[in-house]
């Protein structure tokens, strides 16, 4: 049954992609195709990066409410970009090739998230409320420091980083598309190789050890992969608070299984449908000016509240 649903969702995603490429086109195809194609590729990358990083995080945290963005991963990435601009100076930062900018942030991001979230997860008490609070506090802290540092940066140079601090799907910087695609594909290949190990990790630390896995080592590896995925998606579209939660919650409803071999593609498809379909619908179907990020975060936010309240009652 999950197989059939995956096929249906693949079809749905294909339809969304076709609409995205063709709806409301004006002017020559020579221009439209590469333009929309790049944007489509970027949306796809973001969709898969968000769904995969969220699933991975929920598996190591053994929890279906926490996500990388709720734990402050993307806020951390934004902060790192801002801090780099501040440290190097906006002028010199602006002259760095985008590739260098990106890899600089990525490297710091990997190190910082290992330190922060690694400690948090490895010394975790099985106390979900505390994890949520820690995450929210970290997120608020990163955002507060971020806006503080932004204020200290010369207002003229402000625009360099302002764009990176807010979620946006309509204007996507595509300079980094090639290298990001390579990074994400490598990461996805590694995740796919781990799919059975992820199933075992989801059983819990003791069961995983009993079955011959090493949850400590795996947690570190998975955090590394999450850091790369979050960096890519945040670099493209900025922080998206609740997309991951929305996607994984739907995934567990549409394809209820413990097998990551199904969960991973299923979540990626749902995420792609939501992003590409949603963006196309907003831009061309409804001609609405509401940004997709706002829509997704509203739904996701309500879902988050619902999940927490439901949990609080049981």
């Amino acid at each position, binding site marked *: 049954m999950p197989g059939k649903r995956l096929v249906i969702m693949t079809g749905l995603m294909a339809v969304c992609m076709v609409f995205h490429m063709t709806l409301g086109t004006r002017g020559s195809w020579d221009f439209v195709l590469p333009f929309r194609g790049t944007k489509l590729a970027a949306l796809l990358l973001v969709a898969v990066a968000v769904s995969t990083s969220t699933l991975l995080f929920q598996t190591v945290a*053994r929890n279906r409410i926490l996500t990388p963005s709720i734990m402050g991963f993307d806020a951390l990435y934004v902060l790192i970009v801002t801090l780099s601009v501040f440290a190097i100076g906006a002028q010199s930062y602006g002259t760095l090739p985008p590739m260098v900018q990106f890899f600089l942030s990525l490297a710091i991001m990997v190190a910082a998230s290992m330190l922060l979230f690694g400690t948090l997860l490895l010394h975790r008490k099985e106390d979900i409320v505390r994890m949520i609070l820690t995450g929210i506090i970290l997120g608020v802290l990163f955002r507060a420091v971020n806006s503080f540092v932004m204020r200290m940066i010369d207002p003229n140079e402000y625009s360099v980083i302002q764009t990176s601090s807010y979620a946006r799907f309509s204007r996507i910087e595509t300079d980094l598309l090639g290298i990001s695609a390579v990074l994400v594909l490598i990461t996805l290949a590694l995740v796919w190789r781990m*799919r*059975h*190990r992820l*199933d*075992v990790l*989801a*059983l*819990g*630390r*003791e*069961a995983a*050890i*009993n*079955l*011959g*896995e*090493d949850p400590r080592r795996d947690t570190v590896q998975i955090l590394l992969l999450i850091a790369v995925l979050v960096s890519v998606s945040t670099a493209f579209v900025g922080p998206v608070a609740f997309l991951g939660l929305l996607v994984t919650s739907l995934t567990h409803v549409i394809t*209820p299984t*413990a097998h990551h071999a199904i969960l991973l593609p299923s979540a990626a498809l749902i995420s792609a449908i939501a992003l590409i379909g949603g963006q196309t619908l907003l831009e061309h179907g409804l001609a609405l000016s509401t940004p997709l990020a706002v829509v997704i975060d509203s739904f996701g936010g309500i879902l988050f509240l619902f999940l927490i309240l439901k949990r609080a009652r049981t």
Partner: protein
Amino acid sequence: MITVSNLTHRIAGKDILHDISLQIPKGQITALIGPNGAGKSTLLSAIARLTPHQTGQIMVDELEVGTSASNTLAKRLSILPQVPEIAPRLSVAELIGFGRYPYHKGHPTKVDRQKTDEAIVLFELDELHSRPLDTLSGGQKQRALLAMTYAQDTEYMLLDEPLNNLDISTSRSLMQLLRRLAETRGRTVVIVLHDINYACSYADRIVTMKDGRIGRCGAPAKIVDAGMLQHVFSTQAEVHIVNGRPLIEV
């Protein structure tokens, strides 16, 4: 044989396990008994590498716990913890299937499926086999977990209070199964029991524990008497000998 030498485990400055040396012979059922908080679960966790041990050495045959590859150990020794965490949405059959993971690493073969089915039948889980774990009763859940441990098919099995939640018939079948495994397949079972009458009836050997130390060890008939109960459990209970086996009055 499992050999524990000079194992000390300290948490927050307090010795939970105090210089423990112990040999657990192969092909036998060894019952670990002792009052709440004696350190029984901590000892099993250390042997099964769930808690890394701080000092001392633990050997399972030629494999040293802590340095041997975890996957090799997973095919030699299994543990059923006292309070296992479980994934609530997993079905019974899926859970039991995970017992085979050390062998197939996610790609189950025919043999793996056979072993899984065998465990399902043995623990009478046929009718429950596609039920999610969180819909099971306490005893049914315990049976599913035992079936998973059985499917792991290891030479050494560490069972921490496996009779929890089981009714008398299931308890007796489990103990009889363990006896068969020990006698016909040479399996080694270390089992934490609170009902000493079960230990007396089914175990080859009893190891007593108190305050993180090993006390008297030996065949049930040799060591179970009013004096031992008084000393280890600080309780006065009469012990009768019935058919050559000690029987404790409760």
